[in-house]
């Protein structure tokens, strides 16, 4: 059956390639950007297609991040993979380990002779997607980092200074109590992404290791270490605050229930991706929004360090013609140009990927006109990244994120203490990493 498939596919691809050879080289891009972001992405691609005649890029929306990645992997197995696929940050470990399936970006740029300066990218962004030899493996596209949003009107009502975002968790607690006692809002704060914000970024922000071997950057055979005393204290606090109503849980994964709690002014503060900024502004019709960095515990030495990113990068898949790869390289060159990057960054709230795009925004006066839009950039650049705050890279991390959610739910519904919950995150997470090692080692 397989050979029949292969022959059929070969014939099909031959047909396709000859038919487009007369016109343009076709480059396919599978992405996970729906809604407004998807429209913007298509606009960017259209501008590229109009700018030259040699290549034609076709973007296809494939659903959520997980669905897009799954679709690309399934397509690879059936030998019908796209040239470019957008993969979220937690899929990095899986992609990196698939040596025969991916075409590393640094290699692609070298092979096609495309001008490319890895040093022009923001280190906190590119560090996440670089191997231990300093080679860039995928093309950063949309990276964000969690920040704190707060309701200035509620702060005023509660007698707090609306221009002062809370700096520490002690502040968050004190402000929340004041807000609740004064009746300005029903709850102090909520958060999206328990795993990303309240564990991974929390650890990096306090300069604590998430795992061994530099958070997994050094070897796929690594172990999680998120059950330290500081993380334990934080989760125990979250449980305590949930019980007293100070904190309101927004659900697993991205935390779908969190944004409405902030928009409806039920909760005064809200932690989520900097890319949520557009959504926050669109929905916060009746109040003014303030922006701040993530809180930290004042008594932890080394905090605040720098936050880590989330979002997605573009991976190039093996198995296509050299011509197509030239098109991919040319398109990447266009994508990382300061104009395109600055436009995308300012539209979406994602980080500017390159220093040049950031400088361009400054020149245009964008940050002065849009207060809060540079909080995320300042936060990832607060200090040079340490081995604890470069990012994380573990196999099977998509499932480990689920484990974190499940154990957090166990904590909140009282079936486990903070220590027990974090210990099982580590234990179950390590088992999943070992599975990955067995499948890929």
């Amino acid at each position, binding site marked *: 059956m397989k050979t029949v498939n292969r022959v059929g596919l070969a014939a099909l691809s031959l047909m396709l390639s000859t038919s487009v050879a007369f016109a343009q080289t076709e480059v396919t891009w599978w992405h996970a950007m729906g809604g407004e972001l998807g429209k913007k992405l298509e606009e960017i691609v259209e501008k590229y297609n109009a700018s030259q005649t040699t290549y034609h890029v076709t973007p296809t929306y494939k659903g959520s991040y997980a669905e897009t990645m*799954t679709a690309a992997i399934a397509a690879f197995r059936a030998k019908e993979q796209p040239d470019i696929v957008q993969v979220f940050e937690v899929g990095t470990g899986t992609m990196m380990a*698939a040596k025969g399936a991916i075409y590393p970006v640094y290699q692609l740029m070298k092979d096609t002779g495309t001008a490319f300066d890895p040093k022009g990218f923001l280190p906190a962004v590119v560090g996440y997607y670089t191997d231990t030899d300093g080679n860039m493996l995928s093309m950063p596209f949309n990276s964000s980092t969690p920040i704190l949003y707060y309701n200035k009107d509620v702060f005023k009502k509660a007698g707090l200074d609306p221009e002062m975002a809370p700096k520490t968790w002690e502040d968050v607690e004190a402000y929340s109590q004041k807000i609740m006692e004064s009746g300005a809002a029903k709850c102090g704060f909520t958060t999206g992404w328990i795993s990303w914000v309240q564990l991974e970024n929390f650890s990096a922000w306090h300069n604590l290791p998430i795992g061994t071997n530099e958070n997994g950057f050094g070897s796929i055979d690594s172990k999680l270490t998120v059950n330290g005393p500081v993380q334990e204290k934080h989760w125990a606090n979250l449980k305590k605050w949930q019980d007293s109503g100070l904190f309101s849980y927004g659900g697993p*994964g991205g935390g779908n*229930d969190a944004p409405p709690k902030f928009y409806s002014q039920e909760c005064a503060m809200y932690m989520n991706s900097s890319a949520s900024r557009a959504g926050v502004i669109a929905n916060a019709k009746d109040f003014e929004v303030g922006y701040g960095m993530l809180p930290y515990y004042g008594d932890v030495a080394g905090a605040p360090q720098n936050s880590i990113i989330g979002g997605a990068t573009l991976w190039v898949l093996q198995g296509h013609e050299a011509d197509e790869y030239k098109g991919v390289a040319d398109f990447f060159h266009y994508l990382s140009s300061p104009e395109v990057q600055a436009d995308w960054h300012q539209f979406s709230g994602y980080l500017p990927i390159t220093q040049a795009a950031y400088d361009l925004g400054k020149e245009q006066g964008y940050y002065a006109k849009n207060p809060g839009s540079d909080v995320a950039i300042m936060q990832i650049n607060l200090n040079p990244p340490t081995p604890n705050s470069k990012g994380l890279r573990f196999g099977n991390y998509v*499932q480990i994120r689920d484990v974190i959610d499940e154990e957090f739910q*166990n904590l909140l519904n009282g079936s486990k203490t903070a220590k027990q919950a974090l210990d099982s995150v580590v234990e179950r997470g390590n088992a999943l990493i070992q599975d990955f090692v067995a499948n890929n080692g």
Partner: protein
Amino acid sequence: MQTKRTIFSQRVLPYFLLLPQLTITAVFFLWPAGQAAWQSFLREDAFGLKTTFVGLANYQRIFGDPSYLNSLGVTAVFSVSVTVVSIGVALILALAVDRMVRTAQVYTTFLVWPYAVAPAVAGVMWWFIFNPTIGILPYLLRGLGYDWNHSLNKTDAMILVVLAASWKQISYNFLFFVAGLQAIPSSLKEAAAIDGAGPLKRFWTIVFPLLSPTTFFLLVVNIVYALFDTFPVIHATTSGGPSQATNILVFKVYNDGFIGQNFGSSSAQSVVLMIVVIALTMVQFRWIERKVQY
């Protein structure tokens, strides 16, 4: 027992007539099932670049995995609850409609309606109704002093998925029960009534035994439904949470295979699931069918 038999004059014709169905079964069942069985003995990375034959290791792993054992337990509770609720409620509704003289048709139409709703749509609807933040039901329950939160409370989550999964199945069961009740000769019930048997006595000694073929059929269908077809309901409401409290076997197969890319384990799980269903159906036919009166 009577048997019907048709004798074909030609040998080839019967096979030819069976061919379309056999082809469909082979392509859509035997082939994928065979692939799953084969995959369950392999260990593979996500992209299929490295494949190792590991024998029964995948099976050993899943049976030593607490989350799989939990999923087995959850599935048992879930499928029994869904079957009992959907058959029980449907029977009560069918009996109520059966007693009606004029409006039975109208009620039947209304009660069958939910069956036309796609499971995913039903799931989203229940998700809205029960949403702890924006749902109407938690709001009402809070008024009564109960803090409904299925994103944290395991019992709440189970109640939610059982209700959502049963709701549309009730329509299906109802339809069969109505038909079954109409097939029971009223002379039997009337004779019993004349002999002085009350409504409950008549139900247990006449109606229920005569309905047993229908009930048996629905039992098989509903258990299979609860095990397989409830995937969209789980996907749209709880996604198996909180803490895997509603992570039924079929959802776990999807999660580990399609989201987690662990094809070996996922295939082993689906083979186990297949064996469970075959075994259950066989048990039902061997043991329960004997008690059924046709």
